[in-house]
């Protein structure tokens, strides 16, 4: 009986998480266009619905009803499966992210996390890394040089910055002693001053930079930089397959925002009189906004600069950070 209840609860949670995150990812595209437009003194989408709010629906209808084109000479099974890998891995990673504190409805306590596994952080990083196969397979199977270059760039970028994000997150993990995101959240229960940013500022900065790189956002958006490689690995994709890549990318953005908020910025602990759920929403929104803000302000770097900064600056800094943390802990 308990088993059945657990299964039903998990399925319901999974469906809700999928729907909400997919909706948020769609809304983030609208938000991105609006924020970028305001920062460039434009209005952005204005004509579909009030203030362009229904643009989202129009885009969705367009993506769903577009002809599904599979070009000649592509490796068809791989070409078809690549965007699914990209989107699915992004959503799988979300399974171990707690978004809100637990709450009680009709006497039934709900933990807003699909599964609280004890290696939660490792699971998220692993699942997000599997997402690398999306760009890689898409690039290899597309029979297009831009796609190939985009796929290659995606792989070097993600591989390199996996190292940085893994190493940078090691130092806070050494202090906490657990990989579960709920434990990490509970470690910072003492309010503003117990946020891990203050204890691990370097790890915070490194993880944030790696987060930008892993989600292919602007300073590191070599993967689909239009002027150089058209649309990167997604050049040959259209319609809903392209949409899947897109949703996966925005879901990854939300995941990274939630991770940074939980690990470094106090998670869903209440601050002063603001309840924890609101705090979490505020933090995730701020990080999403930061992604858009940075895109409006900064130019992107060259691939060699990216590699340089990853292996010659960020990785040594992460190692030094671990060393110092270890010495202090001992």
């Amino acid at each position, binding site marked *: 009986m308990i088993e059945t209840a657990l299964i039903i609860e998990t399925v319901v949670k999974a469906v809700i998480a999928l729907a909400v995150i997919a909706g948020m990812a769609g809304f983030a595209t609208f938000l991105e266009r609006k*924020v970028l437009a*305001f*920062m*460039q*003194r*434009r*209005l952005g989408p*204005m004509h579909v619905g009030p203030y362009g709010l229904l643009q989202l629906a129009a885009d969705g209808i367009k993506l769903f009803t577009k002809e599904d084109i599979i070009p000649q000479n592509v490796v068809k099974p791989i070409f078809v499966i690549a965007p699914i890998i990209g989107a699915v891995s992004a959503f799988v990673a979300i399974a171990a992210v707690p978004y809100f504190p637990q709450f009680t409805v009709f006497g039934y306590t709900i933990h807003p996390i699909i599964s609280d596994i004890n290696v939660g952080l490792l699971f998220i990083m692993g699942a997000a890394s599997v997402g690398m196969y999306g760009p890689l397979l898409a690039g290899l199977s597309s029979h297009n040089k831009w796609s190939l270059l985009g796929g290659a760039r995606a792989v070097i970028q993600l591989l390199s910055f996996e190292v940085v994000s893994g190493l940078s997150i090691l130092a806070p993990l050494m202090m906490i002693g657990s990989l579960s995101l709920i434990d990490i959240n509970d470690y910072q229960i003492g309010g503003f001053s117990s946020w891990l940013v203050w204890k691990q500022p370097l790890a915070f900065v490194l993880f944030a930079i790696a987060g930008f790189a892993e989600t292919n956002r602007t300073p590191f958006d070599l993967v689909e930089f239009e002027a150089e490689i058209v649309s990167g690995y997604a050049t040959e994709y259209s319609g809903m397959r392209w949409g899947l890549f897109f949703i996966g990318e925005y879901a990854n953005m939300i995941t990274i925002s939630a991770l940074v908020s939980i690990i470094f910025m106090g998670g869903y602990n209440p601050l002063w009189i603001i309840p924890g759920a609101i705090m979490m929403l505020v933090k995730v929104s701020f990080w999403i906004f930061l992604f858009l*803000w*940075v895109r*409006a*302000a*900064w130019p992107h770097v060259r691939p060699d600069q990216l590699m340089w900064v990853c292996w010659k600056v960020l990785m040594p800094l992460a190692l030094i950070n671990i060393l110092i943390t270890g010495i202090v802990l001992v």
Partner: protein
Amino acid sequence: MELRGFKNRNATPGYIYFEGESKPQDAWGRFKRFADRAVKGELFVGLWIVLREMIRFNIHTVQYPAEKLQMSPRYRSIHKLLRLFESGYERCIGCGLCEKICISNCIKMDTKVDEKSRKLVSQYTINFGRCIFCGYCAEVCPELAIVHGDDYEHASEQRAHFGLKEDMLTPLDKFKAKKQKEFPGFGALSKDADKFVKKTPLAY
């Protein structure tokens, strides 16, 4: 006249040549440059500027079909033929100067003498496929009869649209509603033109 001054292709002495940043010579110099760039905060200046623009919310978009730009009076668009304010008769006296001066030969006019033995413009067309909108016709016109309009929406289905006399001449109903404005732009008299009018010196 000496040509040497014109043959000198170098930029004027007012230019400042920028040789580029000096490159660091040794490892210490490179480190200093790296440290300099790392702590300079230029990236955050960029962030601040776009955020400031967002907060100011000084939007420059013109939502075109709903809002339209007011063109400057000197904007040279599709021509108009104006009427005399006093009588409502056409201003054009058929002198043919515009036809003469038109450098792309696109103005065509036919005149005849009517029963009051006045010169009448029976045909007046501009071939807008050839017109380069230079504004000479408006400038040369002694009566300010042909002027440039400020209507920038001239897409149409027919090549001959806009270019016939009845398209360009102020319609009578519009004229009677006092909608015809004096043309302030290219070739028109300046506002203080009256000040420069002098009596003809009879001494000559």
